[in-house]
């Protein structure tokens, strides 16, 4: 049914093994993680197997979609469906981050003030004082040196505008902001069918993405080694690492997507001004990741 059709007939893809394999790979991945976290020896291997099948099947799936598009099978309607699909996917990602931002706001504006005042503080938590970044946890206020839930020794808070030049998060912000512009320049170049310029701007964007990840890794190493700031450093450590960590994971994804687009453009000669949805989808994702970072920069770094 793939042959002969135009905009007035519908295209429905043939039967496909990809979805079933993907579902199986997802299952194996999470089953592997679950057994791993519960201390079963084979866990990591199951996880690795699931992950590899997943990577393989994703590669096959995307290749097929790209192939169909280049064979001219996708009519305007199907292309619009892909656009809607990507848009709503990004919306779902926004809501995922909203849960973590919501947790941060709730903890800072409701939970900690309640724990640090009145009877809660005096009778339950050894005179615990609310403070942000939270260095002294309620557990420490009660048990001192015996505490299990210990806060960090140092934190990532804002050193004041004068100190920004020596402050990693400031450079991270700069890098990511610039990359949002460069990806936009790439798009503009593509609209004018200037592939050379497109490749250059896209290449710069990918490099900036990698640069960001590099700085982020530096920051984490600094946190773990010099500041005693870890995932388990009380609620500050938890919110800090989960928010920046998930963001970092998304930057990794986004960089990878843009890299694939760069390779498609340079090696395979894909994309021109009216057929570039793969690139556009990746660039929307990139802008989204950028906006999330701005939220992080304001609420996790500056306002602390």
């Amino acid at each position, binding site marked *: 049914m793939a042959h002969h059709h135009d905009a007035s007939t519908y295209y429905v*893809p043939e039967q496909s093994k990809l979805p079933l394999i993907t579902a199986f790979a997802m299952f194996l991945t999470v089953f592997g993680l679950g057994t791993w976290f519960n201390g079963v020896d084979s866990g990591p291997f199951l996880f690795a197997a699931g992950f590899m099948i997943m990577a393989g099947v994703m590669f096959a799936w995307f290749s097929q979609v790209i192939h169909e598009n280049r064979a001219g099978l996708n009519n305007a309607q199907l292309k619009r469906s892909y656009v*809607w699909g990507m848009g709503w996917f990004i919306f779902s990602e926004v809501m995922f981050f909203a*849960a973590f931002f919501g947790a941060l706001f*709730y903890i800072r504006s409701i*939970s900690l003030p309640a724990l640090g005042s009145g009877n809660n503080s005096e009778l339950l938590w050894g005179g615990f004082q609310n403070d942000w970044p*939270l260095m002294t946890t*309620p557990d420490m206020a009660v048990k001192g040196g015996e505490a299990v839930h210990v*806060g960090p020794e140092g934190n990532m808070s804002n050193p004041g505008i004068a100190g920004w030049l020596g402050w990693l998060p400031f450079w991270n912000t700069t890098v990511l902001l610039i990359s949002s512009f460069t990806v936009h320049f790439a798009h503009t170049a593509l609209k004018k069918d200037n592939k050379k310029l497109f490749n250059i701007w896209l290449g710069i964007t990918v490099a900036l993405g990698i640069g960001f990840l590099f700085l982020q890794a530096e920051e984490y190493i600094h946190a773990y080694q010099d500041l005693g700031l870890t995932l388990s450093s009380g609620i500050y450590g938890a919110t800090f*690492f989960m928010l920046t960590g998930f963001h970092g994971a998304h930057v990794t994804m986004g960089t990878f997507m843009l890299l694939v687009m760069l390779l498609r453009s340079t090696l395979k000669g894909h994309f021109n001004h009216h057929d570039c949805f793969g690139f556009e989808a990746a660039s929307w994702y990139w802008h989204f990741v950028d906006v999330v970072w701005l939220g992080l920069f304001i609420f996790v770094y500056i306002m602390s």
Partner: protein
Amino acid sequence: MAHGPAHGLSRWLYTTNHKDIGSMYLWFSFAMFFLGGIFALIIRAELFEPGLQIVEPNFFNQMTTMHGLVMVFGAVMPAFVGLANWMVPMMIGAPDMALPRMNNLSFWILPFAFALLASTLFMQGGAPNFGWTFYAPLSTTYAPPSVTFFIFAVHIMGASSIMGAINIIATILNMRAPGMTLMKMPLFVWTWLITAYLLIAVMPVLAGVVTMMLMDIHFGTSFFNAAGGGDPVLFQHIFWFFGHPEVYIMILPAFGVVSAIIPTFARKPLFGYSSMVYATASIAILSFMVWAHHMFTVGMPFIGEWVFMIATMAIAVPTGVKVFNWVTTMYKGSMTFETPMLFSIAFVILFTIGGFSGLMLAIAPADFQYHDTYFVVAHFHYVLVPGAIFSITAAVYYWLPKWCGRMYDETLGKTHFWLAFIGLNLTFFPMHFSGLAGMPRRIPDYNPLFANWNMMSSIGSFLFGAAQVLFLYIVIRAIVSGRKATDRVWEGSHGLEWTVPSPAPYHTFTTPPKVD
């Protein structure tokens, strides 16, 4: 795309056809309905009389938890997605869903996810035992090891729901036949459009909250632990931010189904079509602002109680609009009472009872008495059983002839209805009284004071269960040997799905139909 389905098992495994996928969703949901039903009957058997006779208390808790999870995520939600798969493309004149391969992925995740969830019953320490609302720290610090698998099962079924919802939105927004304007869409399509939006908005929040649990359990974070500066109440806020819209996810498509069936058998157009659309949209928007009505007793400040109480009551207004419209549609209609209509009328009456008990619960000071009692159990079963489940049942009777080209047996269908109707009222109506008298929910043993009400409930529940076995028989019998159905099927039916042959061809429309 002239050719029909592939042969053998591969047709189902590799399909990209919305009808195949719809059927798989529906059968899967039916299977889960029975699995969840078995869990429920174990609960009711234990509660038949006071004292501990059949199961251990810990196993009892596993049953309440698994019953809730399986019914919500395994029975009700997939059934509605199955109906959407079958009906939305036919109703809007589309060839299929917008993204057919992803559609099949959304389905096939579910058997894996529920196999994972069900396997926890056989794990060391048993299945999750912390209730379907899995409040921390019961679900973190004090949880059995199987909680990790529960978390991952939720993750992948959430991915399935999000992909399913994206597909439905893309289909509705993008695949309508020329002339099918938004305000001409059948209400079932409208309610699903809004439901899909709710799903995409809140399933990621559920993923977020289970991720925080995972981190607390295995990686030493303290999101829900006050000792590290976290807060167990935070769990409840995030959960219910997902949870309340989730209850509307389970009821909005039901509104759509009933809005299709009542006009058919009243032989009058739906009264107040546009007000139905706006009411659905307002319910969806309000559903994001009422979550803390599940937490009135958690110790919120007065202003919080007040705001959430008023917002919750406000939902009764658009809901009332809907009930009014259904009743007015029937008013002076030339009504007949085929099985789908019986289920739909029961829906209108009994869902309204559930709405009223919801309003009682919404009164914060009164909820201090009702909260965590059987009154809450009565409330949500009235909205879910004669609400969601009855509408799904009505939909199956209504569209089955279109799906398989054969009629069900009307006498058996009516028998099913009356058994289910009596069974469910016998089961859940007494719970209002035991609840008001103070019987707490989620306990395996109780004060003999509540014995009579509980005995009634248990008898009713087995009757209801038997009625569903009859339902299975009726469906199979119709598919195998039912009388041939006409294309219109129902004398009063309207809409694109009735213009195509019964059974509907494998590919309904190859070129867009004309809509005027």
